[in-house]
């Protein structure tokens, strides 16, 4: 009983802020070209750009940390004098980049995790994930997947659509629900205090150095995702997609943007 009241208030305030296309209540002042199709809710837009900033912080600082020791290992331990799994063709730079790198990495990680959690919780509560990101069973049929894949391979310019196609949905779902949680877990698995409380978090990977290497590969997969994401935004129309993620609006259908 007592829990329900604040919960309902939270839901209401989120629904007010995080309006999504089909839930939008048009007020009497709206004209068709202003609220024609609000593409992204306010919360999605704000967390998207905060997350973008912190993600760049994580990339730059992650690179700075690697510069102190550009070698990767498998198992529990590894260092100079022991065989490595692979070495990056980078100079070893001691006493500098990894210091501020670690500080920036943690500050950015805090911002990324906090804004990402806000996005994830609101995405669940407002049904945003269920409606817009989870592929429907029909979409997941071989036929539909193949059609979507062929469209992408032919570089067919996507139409101004209300919903994401199945490949978009799949890649967003994998990044949001698999890659990000995994990169957080592998990061925590390198913390000596956290592994003292929860040894399983590092044992499950087979050791500290494996967690570090997996963390690196997950970061690479996110860089790949970012490259495709930005390429698709440019392909679909950079100005209109940026406008959609900044103002929430897309050009009225058939109108001139």
């Amino acid at each position, binding site marked *: 009983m007592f829990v329900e009241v604040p919960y309902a208030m939270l839901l209401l305030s989120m629904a007010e802020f995080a309006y999504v296309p089909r839930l939008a209540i048009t007020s009497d002042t709206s004209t068709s070209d202003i609220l024609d199709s609000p593409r992204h809710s306010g919360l999605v837009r704000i967390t998207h750009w905060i997350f973008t900033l912190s993600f760049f912080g994580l990339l730059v600082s992650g690179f700075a940390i690697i510069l102190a020791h550009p070698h990767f290992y498998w198992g529990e331990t590894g260092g100079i004098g022991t065989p490595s799994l692979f070495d990056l063709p980078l100079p070893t730079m*001691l006493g500098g980049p990894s*210091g501020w790198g*670690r*500080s920036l990495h943690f*500050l950015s990680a805090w911002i990324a995790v906090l804004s990402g959690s806000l996005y994830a919780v609101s995405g669940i509560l407002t049904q945003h994930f269920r409606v817009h990101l989870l592929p429907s069973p029909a979409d997941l049929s071989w036929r539909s997947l193949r059609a979507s894949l062929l469209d992408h391979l032919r570089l067919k310019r996507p139409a101004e659509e209300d919903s994401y196609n199945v490949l978009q949905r799949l890649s967003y779902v994998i990044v949001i629900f698999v890659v990000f949680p995994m990169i957080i877990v592998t990061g925590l698995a390198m913390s000596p*205090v956290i592994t003292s409380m929860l040894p399983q978090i590092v044992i499950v990977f087979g050791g500290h150095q494996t967690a570090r290497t997996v963390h690196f590969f997950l970061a690479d997969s996110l860089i790949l995702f970012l490259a495709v994401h930005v390429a698709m935004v440019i392909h679909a129309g950079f100005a209109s997609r940026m406008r959609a993620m900044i103002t929430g609006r897309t050009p009225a259908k058939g109108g001139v943007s």
Partner: protein
Amino acid sequence: MSQAVSRRKLITRGFATAAGVSGLAAAARIADRYGLIPPDHGGIWGIGETLTYATQRILMSRRSLAREFSRSEISKVIPVSGDPPRTEPFERLLAGSFADWRLKVDGMVARPSSFSLDELKRFPSRSQITHQACEEGWSFIAEWTGVPLSYVLSLAGVSPLAKFAVFFPFDESWDSLDLPDAFHPQTLLAYGLNGEDLPAPHGAPLRLRVARQLGYKSVKYLSHITVTDTLKNIGKGLGSASPEEGYSWFAGI
């Protein structure tokens, strides 16, 4: 009508802001009293440092033990970073096998004392095979033997008002621990590595071992421990030499 609403909104927002600001100030005071603010809390990096340290101290156990390994998992190679101090006093002690070396313990303690290496070795000892990661990314497993720091601090009698233990070595890399980490059962004053006397490059005659933090917190070549309630007047007041070079004071990450 709409003016009345906006005025009401303005007043509520004013109250909310005032409450928020004074709430933050009160929160900062309480956080400091409960040891949730690290000494290097200033500047833009300080935000992240404080979030990490405070979250760890609130959510994590202060007594949880770092993983311990079996003898077969001990690393064949133990990388060394840095050289032993080149100062005259240290080289003289090293040449004399540290027979004249003493560890001084003072500050906010009931019985300021000093201990020889033989005295420390006669105290109850603890051996542990733990994993140590360096801030740079490499890591190794080794067996460390020493006397728990908590034993030596208890002998000296730490004041209930004290908050930190500060460690001064023969080189410039002084550091400090909060008392929860200083009294952690795996925090050792180590004189043995893999069953032998601590070799000079690994911090002879005595080094700190902090099992739940990155390697640079385990100060080598110890000479002097001071117990204090503030770090503000030591060095640049950031808690250790590391933040002066851009590394975090708290390395439990």
